[in-house]
């Protein structure tokens, strides 16, 4: 009991501190950093959605921006023609992401490995060319203009800087809710089955799991969250163009997930923050920021394949090692079995 509290306490404290920092941000940050933080939070949702697919189900997609862009265009078109309501846009983005993911995922899931990567890429390039050439609807490569500033719950309008704190709180609440929802998904029996499919698809199939349906469901959930992120991003920037669907964005979000550490959710949080800040800092300093980003990425592939989350785990493991030794001394049992008992109870607790 005591050991369990000791082990879980730091994480709980960390989460609480993080929530307080998020809540206090509009009072402590200037306008520009607050905008960056808002953008990071939107990317966090997008990166977590890809992590669900890539990290948990083992499906590497090079076209995930498709759902981000579809959600973005849906929210943008709604705001141009019907209503500026932010929540309506959010729901529509989520729905559009899910529907387009059903249509494309149903085909893409049939292929494997590299062919899956290529099909996802092909679908996003198809959507990119539709967005570019269907000028009357999308405004072509100039982008969609005339998006009304999002109207937040409570009636305030967000317009670039005007009411930024309110908009920030809206994004932060949505992002935290998305994190909790996705955490629920990956810890559910469904999420554990996805891990099983990632590790050994043949065995899961022989155990009687409908692997295709599970994969498709994961694909659709990921698409829905990506669509939601896209609609938030359009409300943030009041603009949407084919770049929101393009290959570069798909690549960037994959970099975020990899750098953060795939298969952890909080890794996607760290990765998005790291990449967005690095991109902003580098592009202010050099013109060739992509080269430096590429070099950082290579360093991660070589030296830290488990990403920033791996570093966190390493630090946590060191701390726990020290605590375990102390605990072992006081109870009089060997540190090895005691530690594993603690782990088991903690896992059972977490799963409940």
């Amino acid at each position, binding site marked *: 009991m005591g050991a369990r509290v000791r082990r879980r306490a730091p994480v709980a404290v960390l989460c609480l501190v993080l929530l307080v920092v998020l809540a206090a941000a509009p009072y402590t940050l200037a306008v520009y950093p607050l905008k960056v933080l808002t953008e990071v939070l939107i990317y966090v949702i997008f990166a977590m959605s890809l992590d669900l697919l890539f990290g948990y189900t083992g499906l590497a997609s090079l076209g995930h921006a498709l759902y981000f862009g579809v959600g973005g265009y849906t929210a943008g078109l709604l705001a141009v023609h019907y209503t500026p309501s932010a929540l309506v846009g959010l729901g529509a983005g989520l729905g559009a992401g899910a529907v387009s993911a059903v249509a494309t995922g149903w085909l893409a899931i049939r292929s494997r490995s590299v062919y899956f990567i290529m099909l996802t890429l092909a679908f996003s390039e198809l959507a990119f060319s539709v967005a570019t050439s269907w000028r009357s609807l999308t405004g072509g490569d100039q982008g969609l203009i005339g998006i009304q500033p999002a109207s937040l719950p409570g009636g305030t309008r967000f317009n670039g800087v005007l009411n930024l704190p309110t908009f920030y709180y809206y994004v932060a609440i949505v992002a935290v809710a998305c994190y909790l929802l996705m955490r629920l998904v990956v810890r559910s029996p469904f999420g554990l089955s996805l891990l099983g499919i990632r590790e050994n698809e043949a065995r899961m199939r022989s155990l009687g799991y409908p692997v295709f349906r599970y994969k498709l469901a994961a694909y659709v959930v990921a698409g829905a969250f990506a669509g939601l992120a896209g609609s938030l991003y359009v409300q943030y920037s009041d603009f949407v163009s084919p770049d929101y669907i393009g*290959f570069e964005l798909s690549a960037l979000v994959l970099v975020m997930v990899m750098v953060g550490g795939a298969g952890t959710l909080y890794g996607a949080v760290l990765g998005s923050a790291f990449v967005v800040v690095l991109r902003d800092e580098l592009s202010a300093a050099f013109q*060739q920021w992509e080269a430096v980003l590429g070099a950082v990425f290579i360093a991660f592939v070589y030296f830290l394949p488990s990403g920033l989350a791996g570093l966190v785990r390493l630090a946590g493991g060191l701390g726990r090692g020290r605590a375990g030794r102390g605990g072992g001394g006081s109870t009089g049992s060997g540190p090895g079995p005691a530690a594993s008992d603690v782990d088991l109870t903690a896992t059972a607790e977490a799963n409940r």
Partner: protein
Amino acid sequence: MGWLDANAVTLVNGVAEGMLLYMMAAGLTLIFGLMDVLNLAHGAFFLFGSYLAFQFGRHGNNWLVAFGAAVLVGAVLGAILAVATRPLAGRGHLDQALLTFGAAFVLTGLASAVWGYGFQSVSVPSALAGSVSVAGHQYPTYRLAVIVAGLLVAVALFVVIERTSAGAIVRAAVADRDILAAMGVNVHLVMGLIFVVGAVVASVGGMIGSPILGVNTGVGDQVLLLALVVVTIGGLGSLKGALIGALLIGEVQAIGTALFPSFAAFLLFGAMAAILVVRPQGLFGLVHGTRT
């Protein structure tokens, strides 16, 4: 017949573009067949080739220097990348693909640091300027020369891979590299050489293609995307598939751009999606390529 006659020039352009794509796709497909690595840095080889043509060939007289530089730079870059992917060999294919993905960012950044971001044009070498009249049509001489160069590369690769003992080793490595290693062949050397050859062919392709495609930092990605479509349609690991896929995509691209400009990309990726949905391993794909 009437349609063929009216669009003869477009069709020839399609063959020329197909040949350029083949020079990219050949290396991609061989590297994949050997190492199961989708080399996402392959576009950077092409990019460097086209910038070298801009550097040495822009006045229309130093094409031999440009060719030598393209071969040399391609070989060096290919060797570096082959060595760089070695330590990751035990870590799965995705990590290697991700490494080449990072390398593509770095190499594109390097090229833009040297040559800037602007759009550059390269004029056709003076000996190949003008046009030739064949069967009542005027064809640009340079495009015909590109077709000849592409055919030479295709024939050379075919002869080496299918008819020599060195080629037999490469084919054996594609089929089962563990058995080949057990027989005492240095598989890493074979992979390194294939990486170098693929990079050289791509970079020479970039050099040859520069007067047609223009030169800027985006050209590598643009050609890489098309070449990925080519190798996916043709089947990863198959040289024959790469050639047929390249000609197909070259034609789709040329006809699409000439007749339905706003739907060219749609046709292209639509064709690929349709082929993959019907035949998930590509037209000539090895079953081996569908492994995890």
